[in-house]
């Protein structure tokens, strides 16, 4: 019949796409910039004061380099950054910190989550209120008092000091409480009829039906502790227990800024690369979990 009318949205669609690309590039700029910096020879950036645009270094810089047009690229900064800090130790510490935290969190939150979801007992509301207190007053702001506690317990400068405050997780308890409430009560009754005890009930009914919640909780717990800085910084002193974030901070403050920014950027990328890769692999899961983290 008539030709399809030009919808008013068509012009907007073009503007929308342009805006999307513009914002994406703007947001990506720091990452691109740091990657470029990390593969450029140190001298060229200092001499020109012009990192992006000028590649007019006359002679080839010392060390192994690759020339592309007038620009020289090198892996020296990564080699240098790798040597100034014990990265494998920091990596191992970060991994130990997040796994050690999560491994204890899972049973403690499962137990409390079930009790608050499905059991009637005296003082339930009061105890739940106590648990909520941890969400309302994040333990991160009570650093001074908690530091004194760690000293008293005699665990200063150990992995245990990093993990202890996180072994009880109000967020995890609330998330699992909500999830467990969605499990049909008939399944529990049927299992009880078959003579299942509490552990069996958890193993065969509640936990298998709540796997997505556990994955969300694990992703959020791991990524937040992996990125944590203040608490590890305060309760540790030796490099042999300090995680990546604290190592990176030390590198930043001990680097002679004018002379070695290229190496600094290489060090930063060594630290953040694994997380970016993991995110790329599990993008959808991450986004879903993060969206859950607030509204639950």
């Amino acid at each position, binding site marked *: 019949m008539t030709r399809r009318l030009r919808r008013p949205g068509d012009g907007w669609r073009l503007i929308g796409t342009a805006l999307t*690309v513009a914002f994406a590039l703007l*947001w990506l700029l720091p990452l691109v910039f740091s990657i470029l910096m990390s593969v450029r020879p140190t001298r060229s950036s200092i001499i020109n004061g012009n990192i992006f645009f000028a590649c007019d270094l006359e002679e080839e810089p010392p060390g192994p380099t690759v020339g592309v047009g007038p620009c020289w690229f090198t892996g020296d900064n990564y080699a240098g950054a790798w040597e100034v800090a014990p990265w494998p130790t920091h990596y191992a510490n970060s991994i130990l910190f997040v796994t050690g935290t999560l491994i204890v969190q899972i049973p403690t939150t499962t137990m409390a989550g079930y009790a608050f979801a499905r059991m009637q007992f005296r003082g339930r509301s009061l105890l739940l209120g106590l648990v909520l207190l941890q969400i309302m007053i994040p333990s991160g702001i009570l650093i001074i*008092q*908690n530091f004194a506690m760690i000293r008293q317990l005699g665990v200063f400068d150990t992995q245990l000091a990093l993990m202890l405050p996180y072994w009880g997780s109000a967020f995890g308890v609330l998330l699992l409480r909500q999830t467990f409430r969605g499990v049909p009560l008939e399944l529990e009754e049927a299992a009880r009829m078959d003579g299942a005890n509490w552990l069996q009930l958890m193993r065969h009914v509640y936990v298998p039906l709540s796997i997505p919640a556990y994955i969300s909780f694990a992703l959020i717990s791991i990524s937040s502790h992996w990125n944590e800085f203040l608490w590890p910084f305060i309760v540790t002193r030796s490099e042999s227990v300090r995680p990546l974030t604290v190592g990176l901070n030390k590198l930043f403050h001990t680097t002679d800024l004018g002379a070695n920014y290229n190496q600094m950027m290489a060090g*930063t990328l060594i630290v953040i690369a694994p*997380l970016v890769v993991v995110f790329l692999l599990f993008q959808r899961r991450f986004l879903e979990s993060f969206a859950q983290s607030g509204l639950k």
Partner: protein
Amino acid sequence: MTVVSPAAEPRRGKPWLQRALPYLLVAPTLIFITMFTLRPAVQALWDSAHSRPRANQPFAYVGSQNYEDLFNERHFIGRQYVKILHNTLVFTGGTLVVSLPLALLLAMLLNRKIRALGLWRFCVFYPVLLPMIGGATIWAFLFSDSIGLLNTILRSFNLGTVPWLLDPDTVLPSVIAVNIWKQTGYFMLFYLAGLQGIPRDIYEAAELDGAGLFRQFWNLTLPLLRRTTLFLLIIGVTFGFQTVEQLEVMGRGNPANRSNMLLYYIFQLRNEKLNTGHVAAMTVILALILLIFTSSNFFLFERGRHDEKA
């Protein structure tokens, strides 16, 4: 597994365990929360009402003196504290004023059928996942005086350079910019979820009624996302008041405490022996601010959810 026959063990063990079970289940969580939230909170409250004039003298009860000192501009600690409280408010407000509308815009842009959606989403969301220390390190470099990217660009247009992190007037806006870059992707995620919850036919009906895109936005999208916006405002404030990492990398609160903020200041004073009362008072005030915001969040949203379910 040992099976106890009911005849041999007449009912005594079981009800006891059954009654104790819920308490046993919540005990581990409660022990850790008591140790690292309840006890330190009470301690901060107690410390904030005590003070000692010299390092070797015992603590004495001083009532609200420590709190009064914090807000007394003639007291040496009050001069800093009021400024730092002001910085924190400007930082939090400045971040939210830009990042919330931007997050909504980005969510609307990414809530369409476009090519390479995952790529664009990654570009905006990746800062959320980076450790703030890493992100701030990159930005400290972008802001660097002689060789930073921003000044390089300014120079190539023959505009004067700006000492971003060294000038008392530009340091706070610089730190705010980094925070916007870091948090907008996180806020966007919630707007995206909110937008996807709005049924499409509402817009079709509005279009039939002749409502243009702007009318649709003002009269439909914005009101329907009111709850999301309120929620993001509240968590945005709680994030702002716990800012530490970027300050550690971007000037440590300098120059002249013009970029310092509440939690970072507490952290800086952690080894002070004489002002423990003042620092505890700061902790209590910060805890109260967070308590007000997070509990309002809880009563506005968590409560409503359970009512819907029940």
